[in-house]
């Protein structure tokens, strides 16, 4: 079982390329989403104040 998972993570020796190619873009996109969502929440708070 553990061997299988390790084998999957290893990706036939190309683990570095594949995992960075997935990790960096997805973190970029989702962190941008989170930033925008928190901004929207702040805006809504501010709007109700006025």
């Amino acid at each position: 079982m553990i061997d299988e998972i390790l084998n999957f993570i290893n990706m036939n020796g190309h683990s570095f390329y594949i995992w960075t190619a997935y990790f960096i873009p997805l973190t970029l996109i989702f962190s941008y989403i989170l930033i925008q969502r928190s901004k929207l929440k702040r805006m809504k708070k501010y709007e109700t104040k006025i």
Partner: protein
Amino acid sequence: MLKYFHKYANPGKFLTLALPVRKIMGIVSIGVVTVGLIFALFLSPPDYQQKETVRIMYIHVPAAWMSLMIYAFIFFSSVVFLVWKFPLFLILAKESVTIGVIFTFTALLTGSLWGKPTWGTYWVWDARLTSFLVLFFIYLGLKLIMDSFSYSSKGDYAFGYLALIGGFNLPIIKFSVDWWNTLHQPASILRTGGISISSEMLIPLFLMAIGFLFLFIYILLVSVEINLKKRKIIYYKNKPDN
């Protein structure tokens, strides 16, 4: 057509219309991207030539499609802004720039990461890569011109016209880079014909593409709402009778 535009180009109406769409998109896009990732990482088979590295394609190709589509979107909405002067379209165009930068960066990064195991180098001065780099710089230019005119309506037209000139120029740039490459470099390293796309690979590809599209729509709607709210606040603050 114009009347229809007039009706929904009103920011207030747009917000009420966009709210349910935004909520649905938020849920659906996350779902589709997750399913796409599962398909891409676990369920799709490795390529017989490229082995496991083909999995990079499922994020690279949709990101490249998205960055082109977003530029087309920016171009058309800024043309609509310049011709009919609907401020909503300007906001739409402005808010999609950052997302475009992210997707173009993604395409470039994953492309070079894909290139290392398959061609042996991170970067080749190939026509397609070069034109994407130029696209990335044009996006950055749009972003810069937005920031350097902050809180001034002068920047609105500067942005619109830059998007317009960029839209006209991109095909010329693409063509020139193609021309330059075909003369200087024999097409030996890159051979796209090598990959035969089977249906098992098409499923994650299209899932990711649709997921990215929905994600784009979702982020765009959120950003537009932020922008409209900000404008509203500034407007109320500066009202003379307030």
